[in-house]
């Protein structure tokens, strides 16, 4: 019990300290930009980890929800001139409802079939975003207006750094809350043994749908943030590859580990930036790192390291 409390508050505290201290080590705006992307990806990964790591249900299509969040808010605020807050809420509710509708038929599937169905769903979203040029600007993307609230315009990397940092902290807190609760145990039991959960009175379908919707809304929220922060969105946000990136963050960092998901997001966001120096070798090195991590640390970085430490100590 005490150990758990330590992990909770200690971990949360560590994340908060890093967020507060990091700006002293960011030499210029570009690094703020990278940090913001790390934060955005980390939030999606923490949400997705609830679905993949804890409930054991894979999704290869969460970039679809991310893209819908971005385009939903971007189109409502830009093309239709809605207030950004309303656009944000509408996008989140829209994605939540969509996720709720598809969750039941999709989550009846297991394993590779589930992977395939979510993959198809994500790609369909990307295809629609590419094809409906009149609405989305097509493959070349569209411009999104700034986020204005109470006469303030949220502009600039430093402002968004604190917004995303705050959101990350809240997300981690909420995720830790869920995991260590009756709902969290129900989710984990779906992964551990679905029949055991059912005969213990857990309505597994209900919880699977619930966590699917929650993780989709987290992804959509980050889509909204990306749209307003960068002011420019393309259908690539919803692409298959983007979905894979999210899943990879969860798996590389460590499944069923909230802090692992954050570490995965840090690594997978920084890696491409570091690899730009490799020019034509970039893809090769990236692929090799991905394979090696999964072969040698199949449980992901954080759990594998933790296990090693425990053995050593």
């Amino acid at each position: 019990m005490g150990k758990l409390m330590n992990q909770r508050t200690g971990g949360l505290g560590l994340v908060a300290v890093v967020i507060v201290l990091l700006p002293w080590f960011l030499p210029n705006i570009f690094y703020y930009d990278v940090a913001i992307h790390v934060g955005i990806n980390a939030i999606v990964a923490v949400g997705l980890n609830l679905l993949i790591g804890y409930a054991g249900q894979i999704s290869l299509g969460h970039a679809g929800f991310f893209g819908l969040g971005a385009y939903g808010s971007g189109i409502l605020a830009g093309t239709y001139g809605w207030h950004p807050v309303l656009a944000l809420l509408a996008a989140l509710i829209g994605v939540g409802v969509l996720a709720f509708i598809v969750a039941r038929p999709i989550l009846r599937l297991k394993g590779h079939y589930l992977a395939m169905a979510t993959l198809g769903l994500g790609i369909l979203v990307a295809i629609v975003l590419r094809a409906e040029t009149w609405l989305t600007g097509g493959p070349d993307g569209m411009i999104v207006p700034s986020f204005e609230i109470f006469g303030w315009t949220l502009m600039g990397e430093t402002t968004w750094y604190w917004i995303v940092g705050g959101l990350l902290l809240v997300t981690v807190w909420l995720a830790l809350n869920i995991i260590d609760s009756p709902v969290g145990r129900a989710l984990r039991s779906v992964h551990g043994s679905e029949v055991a959960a059912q005969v213990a009175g857990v309505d597994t379908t209900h919880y699977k749908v619930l966590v699917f919707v929650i993780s989709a809304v987290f992804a959509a929220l980050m889509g909204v943030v990306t749209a307003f922060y960068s002011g420019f969105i393309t259908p690539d946000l919803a692409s298959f590859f983007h979905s894979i990136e999210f899943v990879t963050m969860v798996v590389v960092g460590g499944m069923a580990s909230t802090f692992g998901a954050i570490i995965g997001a840090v690594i997978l966001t920084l890696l491409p930036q570091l690899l730009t120096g490799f020019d034509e070798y970039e893809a090769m090195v990236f692929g090799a790192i991905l394979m090696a991590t999964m072969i040698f640390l199949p449980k992901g970085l954080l759990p594998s390291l933790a296990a090693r430490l425990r053995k050593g100590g």
Partner: protein
Amino acid sequence: MFRRFMRKMSVLAGVAVLAVSGAASSADTIKIGSFLAVTGPASFLGDPELKTLQLYIERINADGGVLGKQLELVHYDDGGSAGKARTFAKRLITADQVDLIIGGSTTGATMAVVPLAEQYGVPFISLGGGIPIIDPVKKWVFKTPHTDRMAVQKVFGDMQSRGLTQVGLISGTGGFGKSCRQQALDQADEYKVEIIADETYGPKDTDMTAQLTNIKGADGLDTVLNCGFGQGPAIVTKNYRQLGIEVPFYQSHGVASKSYIELAGDAANGVRLPAAALLVAEDLPDDDPQKPVVVDYKEVFESNFDQSVSTFGGHAYDALMIAVEAMERAGSTDKAAVREAIENTSGLMGTGGEFNMSASDHLGLDLSAFRMLEIRNGDWALID
């Protein structure tokens, strides 16, 4: 290959150290930033563009540089993705603190970066073809390739002179094809042609017979125009011959590279397209003022790289020359001064034609820069 790899590694380590120490900007070099589609579906654009920039910056440096300083190229590969282009442009401006940006192989990547160039005030010369890049004029944004509007006008002019009026249109769904298609629809009335079929294909499609079958079935078809770049137009060309469509076939300047002819093979014979003089450098009359420039670039490029010259590399050459000439005229690398000097470029002969820019024209080429070519026996032939 291994040694090259190790060198990359050490360069990478150096870059990392530099980046961490924050000592990115140094006073004795002029930094040219670029983001190009070196990989991905538009790599046939980005690849010669990057090679050209690297080669000519090396040559300029060997000749003593610009304003007594060496040029330094900072390049990122955007893979043709507008989103990545924006990220890298931001990195070029805020982290690498470049003096000028040349880049954006595609219209989409360019348009994603335009707001950044405007916001931060950095001279930006785009290599994208689309007209929205410079129309309306944006203070900091210039471009060197001919616009798709010019290409469409050239094509429609040629159709008019051959008495072809019923046009079947097929276009790629990427930024270039989309913008070119729009220009074709807009310009049709002026050239008294009618678009009687309008089909599209995706950038990765591998078969366009379905779309062409629909065009083939259109009543009174006189000719077909394809707006697109990459391997798509080559597949369209092959499918066109497969279906036995007999009417004259036009492509846009998006296919103005040898790789199009190589891919389409015999099917390409008879295809007409508007393109820069570069492709027919040796065939130009000796009194053509453009001839020395294009012949020289072609020879330099082809002797350094094992591939045929394309107009796309030429656009990068033009952009670099405009930038260098403007810096020399401005006498500094001050961004505002360089921007103004670029805007006052006049009489500069590039591979794409003579550039005469102004406050209202950030391209500076006219229709005369385009030549109408026909592919004969697997090679370009000048027909006007």
